């Protein structure tokens, strides 16, 4: 029979990360299998026992092909989701609901060396598919040259600047702190050392007011995460990371990055709805969270998420990030101690990997006594999130 809640019904027991690069030199099929193998070994799970696979639609080969590469007979559960890390939710349902025992969530994308070389090329390539609504009204935007995600976000961000008074000198702390954190993380290839506010101010305004340093760069990589029930986790190699809560959020009049027709375009109603559900299911609140893994695909979404997720009041985020002290390791709420996507490249599942490491105490940029981490994804569109905790 049904359960009341998915609270604490699943756990992350293994992670596998293939070293990131800008030219990985292997196929996505190869690195997908490689990451899963690493994750299974780390967890102490036999590959033959993997019976569920979930992923994002766009990232990497289908479960059937991955399963074939790994020599898995048959899967009891497989699923592909579109938005952010929302595939995680299906993995939790599948193991909590008894549909499978060991579910792997994998993401494989070679965006730096693959056919989708830069953000705008990628979008143009997708836009030429006439067979999909694809969540963006290209027919209303592209003839005017409003093309590509940095531009979509810039349109919203200009308005955000106008309404909140946030200055580049404040937003700049998102990439600055990201670069500091990335410099400590061997998997983060984009920064050897911390940048300064001057570096930020000189960063090219590719789609003014969005700078190059506000955007997560493209990267080649592959990550796998093994999920099972807390009971089964006991027999495995690693200390399990309990999934306290997962949630998805959605709001009316939404379009991917381009919800320009809402009365207010400078908040994240999907994220707010998701957060309500996330805290309700898990019985936690923003004050219980020790580390926040936020969606920093584009820097302006970080202050917006701090407000939407309740880490600070409305209108307080620009001051919260300014100077970086509150969001650094050791601060009030460390954000993305791994360097985030700005530091590691555009790769959503890095957030889950870092959440696991923070709970285990094995991060390259460890926050002391981390027992709860919040992961959020899908800023600017349908949102999803997870709170995980120490057992």
């Amino acid at each position, binding site marked *: 029979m*049904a359960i009341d809640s998915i609270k604490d019904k699943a756990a992350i027991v293994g992670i596998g990360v293939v070293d990131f690069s800008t030219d990985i030199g292997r196929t996505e099929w190869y690195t997908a299998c490689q990451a899963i193998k690493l994750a299974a070994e780390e967890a102490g799970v036999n590959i033959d*026992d993997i019976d569920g696979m979930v992923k994002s639609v766009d990232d990497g080969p289908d479960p059937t092909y991955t399963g074939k590469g790994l020599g898995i007979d048959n899967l*009891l559960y497989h699923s592909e989701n579109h938005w952010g890390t*929302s595939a995680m939710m299906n993995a939790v349902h599948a193991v909590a609901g008894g549909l499978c*025992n060991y579910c792997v969530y994998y993401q494989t994308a070679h965006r730096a060396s693959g056919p989708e070389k830069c953000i705008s090329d990628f979008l143009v390539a997708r836009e030429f598919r006439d067979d999909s*609504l694809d969540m963006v009204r290209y027919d209303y935007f592209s003839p005017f040259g409003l093309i590509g995600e940095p531009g979509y976000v810039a349109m919203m961000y200009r308005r955000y600047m106008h309404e909140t008074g946030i200055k580049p000198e404040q937003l700049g702390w998102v990439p600055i702190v990201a670069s500091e954190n990335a410099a400590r993380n061997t998997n983060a290839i984009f920064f050897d050392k911390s940048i300064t506010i001057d570096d930020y101010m000189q960063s090219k305004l590719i789609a003014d007011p969005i700078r190059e340093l506000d955007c997560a760069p493209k990267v080649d990589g592959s990550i796998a995460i093994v999920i099972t029930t807390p009971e089964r986790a006991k027999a495995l190699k690693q200390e399990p990371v309990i999934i306290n809560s997962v949630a998805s959020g959605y709001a009316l*009049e939404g379009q991917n990055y381009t919800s320009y027709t809402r009365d207010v375009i400078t908040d994240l109603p999907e994220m707010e709805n998701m957060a309500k559900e996330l805290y309700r*299911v898990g019985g936690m609140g923003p004050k219980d969270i020790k580390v926040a893994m936020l969606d920093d695909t584009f820097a302006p979404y970080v202050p917006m998420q701090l407000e939407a997720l309740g880490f600070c009041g409305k209108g307080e985020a620009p001051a919260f990030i300014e100077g970086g002290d509150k969001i650094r390791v050791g601060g009030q709420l460390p954000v993305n101690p791994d360097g985030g996507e700005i530091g590691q490249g555009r790769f959503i599942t890095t957030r889950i990997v870092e959440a696991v490491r923070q709970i285990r105490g094995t991060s390259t940029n460890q926050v002391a006594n981390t027992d709860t981490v919040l992961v959020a994804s899908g800023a600017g569109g349908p949102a999803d999130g997870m709170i995980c905790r120490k057992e």
Partner: protein
Amino acid sequence: MFDEYLARRYRTTTRPKKEHYLVKDSAAIVGIGATEFSKDSGRSELQMVCEAVKAAVDDAGLQMEEIDGFVRFEMDYTDEMHICSSLGIPKLTYFAECGWGGGASCSTIVHAAAAIAAGVAECIVCYRGMNEASGRRYGRIPGTPSIMTAPRDHFGSILPFGHCTPPGWVAMFASRYLHEFDATAEDLAWVSVVCREHANRNPNAIFYDRPLTVQECVEARMIIEPLRLYDCCVDTDGAVAIIVASAEKAKKLKQKPAYIVGATQGNATEGELMTSYYRPVISGLPEAWYTGQELWRVTGAIPSDVNVAQFYDAFSPLIPMQLEEYGFCDRGKGMDFCRGGDRIRLGGELPCNTSGSHLSEAYLHGMNLIAEAVRQIRGTSTAQVKNAELSLVTGGLGIPTSAILLRN
């Protein structure tokens, strides 16, 4: 691995415990809605989907605001975001997407039922809308990334030979099936004829007023040997929406609930997109076998308990093949089961595809089959099986597939 495959040894050591299967009886199908089925809808897929969802919400006796989840086909050209902005659905707490074309049909129910069992949503819409007759037909060479979701290497090894359409892909293994079990075109024709008989009772079916004989079947235009015209499904414009709700909620709604006893997915190794030619044996559908094994295990039902079945029938040979794989008859006996039509028609041992299904009602990627299975439980089918207690639906074949078992 190949030895194991030949033996089709179902994983026995690591399956989740049966008592952990929370989906059983946690959810029910409470609403079904569809547009008309036609050859040219004259409107967008988004519009048809909105119409179908509205019809399903009305059918269930729900308010639009009560919808809190969506499950879509990865192949669908519409998305939940635009649908919600049209229908005025303010908030969703669950959304998911299912891959592999028609293999996703019952997968959508697997996802919805699991989300409901896990307590994250209460009323979830599963839908499919396609202008497959007037728009982009699947009979053409796949040129879009969405069709070529798999690693491209394999298509690279078949497309250059002109082997590039679904009827062709299926014909390759259907030929082997007919060859290995000595079946004839006449045998096969009975499948199409029985589906047509059922469609002739269903005013919503595209072939409602067009009877069909075995003679016509075997004389029809050859599409790709051994598949003739009536062995192929009917290209359709239309949309279908199915609403899944928690069992608790279902009791308070307008319709008699069709409880979901089990909803399972299956895939098998060495799988390719309708072209799994590299397996030692290609005259079977191991994905369906796995899906069935799991379905019988988690529900505790056996094939002979089933009163009525809707088998996915993009092409007629898939019905006898599934009769075998889901355990209704022995390997190689599927054709015997269908010959003459008596065992599969209304009144027979296992009435199959009672709406006329893909071959004669409409081809909506399996979603119209789910709607018919629900009608059988409600007692409102135009080819109603008396006292239907257990109603089976299966998903697309030659790809990872799915199945559901509904009960009264």
